[in-house]
């Protein structure tokens, strides 16, 4: 009769890695499926101060804030608590450590969302349920009986329209009232029998559901998958019963938004809609931001004012040569004069005044060459401080803001999953699934930013393929402008050859990787949220968060990249590299020797490489060969750094050297065939 006695077998509890927490404050964890408006609820509760960080050991972002006397955690959107992907693994650990779970669900998709709710309840957590998008449900003639839902689930329920701030004031009350809900008795008993092995009911449940990570953490073998299935099926049936009693629907209305949603995945209208979206994206990010705004911020403010003032201030008491290039209307150098300051600008103010007034009303470029190599390293032509500052603040920041804004609009409108659906088949050729379309599009803005975004892909294999394609064959916006200008002078045939070579190269590399890398493409199983009008304040907040996160993440790498090139320049290694490249450039690529400089400059920033070609007198086919080489050539140092961080040293280096070799190889072959 003593078989009910709890036996404490020896077992281990490995520390759960998590975001740092305050032991004195109760933890509220926001949990929900993707696209249910969880971030709006988080923003409502968190106020201004949000701490966004990477979850230890992963690349998933976790937001943490303080709400009254609670610590508030956001989690990635998930369909259930388990370990099917990184998002779920991160959410799982935060949920296990949480005291109160606020579960946000979509009133229209309760069938889908309540599965997670019931799972959280089965974990024995104190749960409060926020049924969001009540307006959308009403519009679709779905009646949700919140009272009934509360009775059936056994946890408090409120209804909200988060985007319009409706009902959110009740959340505090919900937090206070949150409690354990109705659970399956047999399951509950099973779970409690396991409490001696694991720390909590939540972990016991995950253990029964075959979670390998939890099993390992407690040193027990994972439970058979069939148990999970039984639990899942039972849970699904319970959810369906709850729904039968609390939701009734009359008729799904046909509205414009849902019509657009349907058209955007149809074979006939889908591609024209995609074309319109891409064109709008191009006009906004490519023209308005990348050309007009960046032209103003980078040249006028960044180089003309900020850099000029820093450099001339540094040159105040240091031996410096100032070269002034007067530019004509086309931006070509019309006249150059050198001014020498042996004891700094301040020692010879008259000459400095003369230098500044030398260009008159024309535009001019001032180049400061310091005698002291340290000053050159930090403030010279490729100065780690000056170049990074201009590049980051005045070129990249507007661009990244623009891109993330556009992306947030597309994301909040519900279009992105439809786009993924539309292009899924095409991307499968290169071993990717539809989701990869997002980083690939972002790559046309900034390859560095896109490389970071490859995190959202499901498997390491897909991340490798997408990163390689991005680094190799996708020209970023900075480069695209110069490429387009050069191709315009080379003519339509040259443009055609260039596009065909780059595109077929992209397909070939993708296909080869798809065929040779072990593993399979993960299948697309994606939920299409309803289309809706994005809310400006939410889009803005998202844009700012993402931009801040990117700048924080990428800035040091841009600085280090500039420093590396600066050291190469100061030590003279840069010129040795150019000399070493010369035979290859002249003999194999059949380009003038000065092109070597342009290629090496492409290391600093991809567009420098292409821009360097402007001053060379090239035939149309030489332009094609040069541009193909530049496009496939190593991306800028910052994207290399980010790639090394994301993909690891070994893989990053393989991609880097691979692209170096392939760029020269393909460029040369094209050159040998054409010229």
């Amino acid at each position, binding site marked *: 009769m003593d078989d009910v006695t709890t036996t404490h077998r020896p077992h281990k509890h490995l520390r759960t890695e998590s975001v740092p927490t305050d032991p004195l404050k109760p933890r509220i964890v926001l949990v929900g499926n993707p696209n249910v408006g969880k971030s709006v609820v988080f923003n409502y509760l968190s106020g201004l101060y949000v701490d966004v960080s990477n979850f230890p050991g992963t690349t998933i972002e976790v937001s943490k804030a303080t709400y009254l006397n609670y610590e508030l955690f956001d989690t990635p959107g998930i369909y259930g608590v388990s370990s099917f992907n990184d998002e779920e693994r991160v959410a799982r650990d935060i949920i296990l450590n949480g005291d109160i779970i606020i579960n946000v669900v979509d009133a229209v998709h309760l069938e889908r969302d309540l599965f997670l709710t019931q799972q959280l309840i089965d974990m024995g957590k104190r749960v409060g349920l926020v049924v969001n998008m009540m307006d959308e449900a009403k519009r679709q003639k779905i009646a949700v009986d919140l009272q009934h839902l509360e009775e059936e689930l056994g946890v408090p329920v409120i209804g909200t329209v988060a985007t319009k701030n409706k009902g959110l004031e009740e959340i505090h009350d919900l937090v206070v009232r949150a409690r354990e809900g109705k659970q399956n008795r047999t399951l509950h008993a099973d779970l409690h029998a396991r409490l001696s092995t694991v720390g909590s009911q939540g972990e016991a449940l995950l253990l029964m559901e075959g979670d390998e990570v939890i099993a390992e953490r407690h040193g027990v073998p994972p439970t058979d998958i069939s148990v999970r299935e039984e639990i899942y099926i039972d849970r699904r049936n319970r959810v369906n019963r709850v729904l039968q009693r609390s939701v009734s629907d009359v008729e799904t209305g046909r509205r414009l938004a849902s019509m657009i949603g349907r058209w955007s995945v149809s*074979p006939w209208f889908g591609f024209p809609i995609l074309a319109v979206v891409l064109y709008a994206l191009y006009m906004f990010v490519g023209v308005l931001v990348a050309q007009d705004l960046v032209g103003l911020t980078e040249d006028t403010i960044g180089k003309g004012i900020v850099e000029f003032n820093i450099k001339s201030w540094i040159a105040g008491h240091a031996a410096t040569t100032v070269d002034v290039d007067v530019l004509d209307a086309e931006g070509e150098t019309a006249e150059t004069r050198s001014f020498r300051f042996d004891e700094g600008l301040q020692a010879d103010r008259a000459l400095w005044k003369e230098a500044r007034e030398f260009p008159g009303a024309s535009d001019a470029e001032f180049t400061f060459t310091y005698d002291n190599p340290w000053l050159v390293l930090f403030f010279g032509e490729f100065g780690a401080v000056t170049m990074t500052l201009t590049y980051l603040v005045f070129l990249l920041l507007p661009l990244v803001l623009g891109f993330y804004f556009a992306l947030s609009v597309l994301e909040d409108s519900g279009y992105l999953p439809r786009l993924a659906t539309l292009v899924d088949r095409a991307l499968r050729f290169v071993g990717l699934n539809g989701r990869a379309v997002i980083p690939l599009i972002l790559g046309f803005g900034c390859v560095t930013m896109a490389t970071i975004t490859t995190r959202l892909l499901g498997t390491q294999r897909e991340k490798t393929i997408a990163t390689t394609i991005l680094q190799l064959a996708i020209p970023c916006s900075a480069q695209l402008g110069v490429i387009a200008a050069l191709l315009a002078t080379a003519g339509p045939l040259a443009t055609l050859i260039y596009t065909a070579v780059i595109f077929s190269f992209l397909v070939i590399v993708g296909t080869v990787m798809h065929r040779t890398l072990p593993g399979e493409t993960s299948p697309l199983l994606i*939920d299409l949220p309803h289309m809706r009008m994005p809310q400006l304040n939410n889009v803005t907040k998202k844009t700012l968060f993402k931009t801040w996160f990117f700048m924080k993440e990428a800035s040091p790498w841009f600085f280090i990249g500039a420093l590396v090139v600066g050291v190469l320049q100061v030590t003279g290694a840069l010129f040795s590299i150019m000399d070493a490249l010369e035979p290859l450039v002249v003999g194999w690529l059949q380009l003038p020797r000065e092109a070597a400089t342009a290629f090496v400059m492409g290391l600093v920033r991809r567009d420098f490489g292409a821009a360097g070609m402007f001053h060379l007198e090239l035939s149309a086919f030489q332009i094609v060969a040069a541009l193909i080489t530049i496009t496939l050539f190593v991306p800028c140092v910052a994207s290399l750094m980010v790639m090394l961080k994301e993909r690891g040293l070994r893989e990053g280096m393989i991609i880097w050297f691979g692209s170096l070799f392939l760029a020269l190889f393909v460029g040369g072959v094209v050159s040998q065939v054409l010229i």
Partner: protein
Amino acid sequence: MRSETLSMLGKGGRARIARLPEGEMRSRFIRIGLMEGAVVSCLEKLPGGTIVLVFNHQEVALSGDLAASIEVARL
């Protein structure tokens, strides 16, 4: 009786899920409510096999190979 799969369903077609594949995908299907006995209709079928399903007010897209792994009975 020859079994049919979801990938054979054309636009506008309706079917009852007869058998899901084994393994991890099975749990993921059950989680979103795509389980044996559920009735789905095909909202859209893209060239290449990607299929958009409607069931329980939700729209879900599946790649062609995934659809081919689900056995259905046409309605």
